[in-house]
């Protein structure tokens, strides 16, 4: 373990760190989430905290924010030791956090979201919305953006919601700002814009902790980088003295092959053809507005796009969960437009859902029941109206072995498995049998590197075995890594299709953000998204 000295090379400093965490240890039953972690952040510094999912970054920040109590260690602000009892205490001490999943309330206005918890009052009872309005507009201008405080947060784009989160912190006069994976849901362009805002904040003397597992981002924005792995600090670097390979090795602990070799694809006949498809979302507005696309057997078509541009509705229409209002879906030669989930499944469509807890698994039920979730009604798992539990258990044992699902038995509830193993269970069910079209919706979100690699390899094997694969992911990197062709989806339409091997990342990013037209003026983006 590397001890961090206040005078790390490169940036000599005489000021006390704005924040210092010493020897923080946090244990949960069966796991040490933080093991004697040291971290210091200087005034005006952007300090990146780099680590895999589950390395202990979030726990450390929860300790800082008073959401978790450390078992050992101390926290110093401006050189003085403090006890942080909870979020309000942290806020009072000038620490603010922008969470990975935004802590914004969609039905409330921007102003109400910013006010909440630290309300500007007129008298003891009522809010002073006029004053708050004035202060928010002023604060936004200071950091280079115009925002309408009366607009409902739910109608803003993700990039603007991010700004609201930052405004929320600034409104509370934050000195130390923690951003937890702030770019996970942003396009490359939005990421650049946020980086500009962060740089400006740091120049004004704010200290920023930037949590990420994306190497290039950390290299682009940070003044210093601290890497943690399995709850321990494994190294500290300055961006000028390191590169992606070095950081990746530190982060993962072994030399990793960052990209699974997708190999050559051999596309065959068109397996899925979508023509002029229109689908409405839950609120009745058209989310898919005339999509045309083709996926051939033996190829992976990746759909890139910022979340909420109609991908969910498109996928739900393809698996039969949503009835299209217009257009045609053809599978091979058969028209399957508007068929039920069961009919789609019977036609050879398999689906790995983005939200496995919602669609993929019944967590309270045993693994065995989950393995036959879509085929429980067919022989050999059912004879007439009766279930054949022996057959169900036999196939479950088989899948557990084949997909290396770590479990004591096929009879434990699926919800007791780790996230990676739960996803393997879904993959085991959906990849098995006669699959013509495989739809992967964010198949690796929130998983550890090992599980991601496993699922990527399986997907490529399935492609090579002749399945047509439609991959939807908000992680542009994942789309770029796996796809033979990439379609960019923007506001319910496919705006461009590129070859997966020659696609240019920044071009795709621009297409995701703007749909390929001239860039929308900044001020308008907030109100139109």
């Amino acid at each position, binding site marked *: 373990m590397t001890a961090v000295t206040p005078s790390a090379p490169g940036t000599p400093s005489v000021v006390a760190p704005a924040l210092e965490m010493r020897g923080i240890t946090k244990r949960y039953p069966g796991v040490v989430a933080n093991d004697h972690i040291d971290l210091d952040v200087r005034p005006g510094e952007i300090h990146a905290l780099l680590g895999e999912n589950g390395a202990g970054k979030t726990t450390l920040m929860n300790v800082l924010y008073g959401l978790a109590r450390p078992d050992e260690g101390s926290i110093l602000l401006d050189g003085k030791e403090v006890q942080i009892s909870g979020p309000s205490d942290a806020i009072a001490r000038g620490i603010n956090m922008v969470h990975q999943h935004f802590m914004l309330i969609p039905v409330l206005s921007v102003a109400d979201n910013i006010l909440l918890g630290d309300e500007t009052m007129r008298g003891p009872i009522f809010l002073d919305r006029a004053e708050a309005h004035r202060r928010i507009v002023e604060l936004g201008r200071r950091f280079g953006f115009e925002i309408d405080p009366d607009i409902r947060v739910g109608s803003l784009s993700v990039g603007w919601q991010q700004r609201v989160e930052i405004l929320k912190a600034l409104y509370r006069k934050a000195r130390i700002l923690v951003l937890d994976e702030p770019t996970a849901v942003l396009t490359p362009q939005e990421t650049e814009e946020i980086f500009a805002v962060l740089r400006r904040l740091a120049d004004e003397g704010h200290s920023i902790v930037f949590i990420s597992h994306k190497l290039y981002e950390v290299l682009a924005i940070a003044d210093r980088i601290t890497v943690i792995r399995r709850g321990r600090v494994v190294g500290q670097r300055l961006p000028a003295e390191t590169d992606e390979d070095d950081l990746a090795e530190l982060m993962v602990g072994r030399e990793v092959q960052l990209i699974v070799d997708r190999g050559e694809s051999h596309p065959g006949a068109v397996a899925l053809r979508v023509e002029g498809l229109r689908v409405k979302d*839950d609120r009745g507005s058209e989310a898919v507005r005339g999509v045309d696309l083709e996926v051939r057997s033996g190829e992976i078509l990746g759909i890139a796009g910022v979340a909420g541009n109609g991908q969910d509705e498109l996928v739900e229409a393809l*698996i039969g*969960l*949503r*009835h299209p209002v217009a257009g045609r879906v053809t599978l091979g030669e058969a028209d399957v437009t508007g068929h*039920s*989930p*069961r009919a789609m*499944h019977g036609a050879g469509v398999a*689906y790995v*859902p983005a939200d496995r807890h*919602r*669609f*993929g*698994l*019944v*967590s*309270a*039920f*045993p693994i*065995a*029941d989950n393995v036959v*979730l*879509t085929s*429980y*009604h067919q022989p050999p798992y*059912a004879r007439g*109206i*009766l*279930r054949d*539990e022996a057959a169900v*258990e036999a196939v479950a044992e088989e899948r557990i072995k084949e997909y290396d699902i770590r479990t004591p038995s*096929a*009879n*434990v*509830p699926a919800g007791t498995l780790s996230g990676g193993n739960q996803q393997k269970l879904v993959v085991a069910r959906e990849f098995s049998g006669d699959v013509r079209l495989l739809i992967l919706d964010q198949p690796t979100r929130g998983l550890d590197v090992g599980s991601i690699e496993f699922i990527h390899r399986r997907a490529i094997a399935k492609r090579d075995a002749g399945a047509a694969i439609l991959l939807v992911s908000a992680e542009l990197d994942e789309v770029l890594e796996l796809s033979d062709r990439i379609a960019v989806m923007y506001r319910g339409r496919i705006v461009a299709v590129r070859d997966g091997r020659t696609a240019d990342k920044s071009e795709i990013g621009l297409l995701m953000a703007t749909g390929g037209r001239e860039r929308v003026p900044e001020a308008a983006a907030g109100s139109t998204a």
Partner: protein
Amino acid sequence: MSEGGARGIPSMGRLLRDAWSVLALPLISIVLALVVGAAIIYGSQLITGQPFTIGLPLEAYAALTQGAFGSFNAVVNTAAVTAPLILGGLSVALAFKAGLFNIGGQGQFLLGALGAVAVGVSFKSAPPFVAIPLALGAGMLAGAAWGFIPGALKAMSGAHEVVTTIMLNYIAIGLVAAMVSGPLDLGTSPNPITDDVGNAALPVLLGRNGHLGIVLALAAVTAVWWLLSRTTRGFEIRIVGANPDAARYAGMRPRFVLILTMSLAGLLAGLAGATVVLGVTRNMTASFNTSVGFDSIAVALLARSNPVGVVFAALLFGAMRGGAPLMQIKAGIPVELVDVLQATILLLLAADRIIRHALRLRGVRGGMASTETITRTYGGDVTAN
């Protein structure tokens, strides 16, 4: 919650441990409720101004037990009181499995009774093997119809069954009164009453009132158990209850399953009503009413929605209801003490976390059936599109 049956033959120790983990909380709740009941009995002596008797709770409980099991006829009577509770408990338990909360047992019971009486009276002179099945069938159908309505309302509009079934209970009370004082009234007395069901009456198999309904209730237990654990339809019911979205993706039709389950729940409660009018009262007055609907909720909760558990939970409350009149006579404690005991048991089950913590119980299962989707569907988002 583990749904799959464990295979192989478990050891005796394992069996005992499993039994304890399942039974501990219900048993502890029952014992604690009796203690609370004793405190209430002491308290009620203050209200009535009786001389303070230290042994009154024991006296009351002894009378309660004697009333329930003190003689052959008492046991048979307890069984007869238990039978509709078993059917009602199955009704609530089955609905729980699909994530539905059937508070409408009362209305479904009343409709079942009404249907059975109406058909029973019409066929009072037909041979029993014709009259009885027809009357029972009419009761089940009427109950199922009264269950179908909230099921369909929930599936189609998202109106939560907790509100609609309560409304239907009140409507059922009105409907019974209207029918009995209207078309079904015999007209022989100023207080409206229906004719006797004659040959449609259930045969008495045992003692004074050990009627066929007891056998029907036990048969229903087997049927519900079989449906839930052996059939694909039962699998669908359980999956829809545990995760309606996953059910939809898996090609099940949650709306259909909800309507079907609620209709079956109504059928069971309707059967309960039919057995009571055909086996016990043999006619109906305009003010005919029942506490079976709400007792059934207690039965299902105590039994954790397990069909076999329902038998024992129903027996407990059936014994209380059966023995309460003797308690009132001998100890002067109103029969409503049973309601208080029942409510206390439920409160203790709901507060299971606290009890487990206070008594340092480990490896003991929670007090309530797994019912997580009931509140989740409260806002009407039962099945998107």
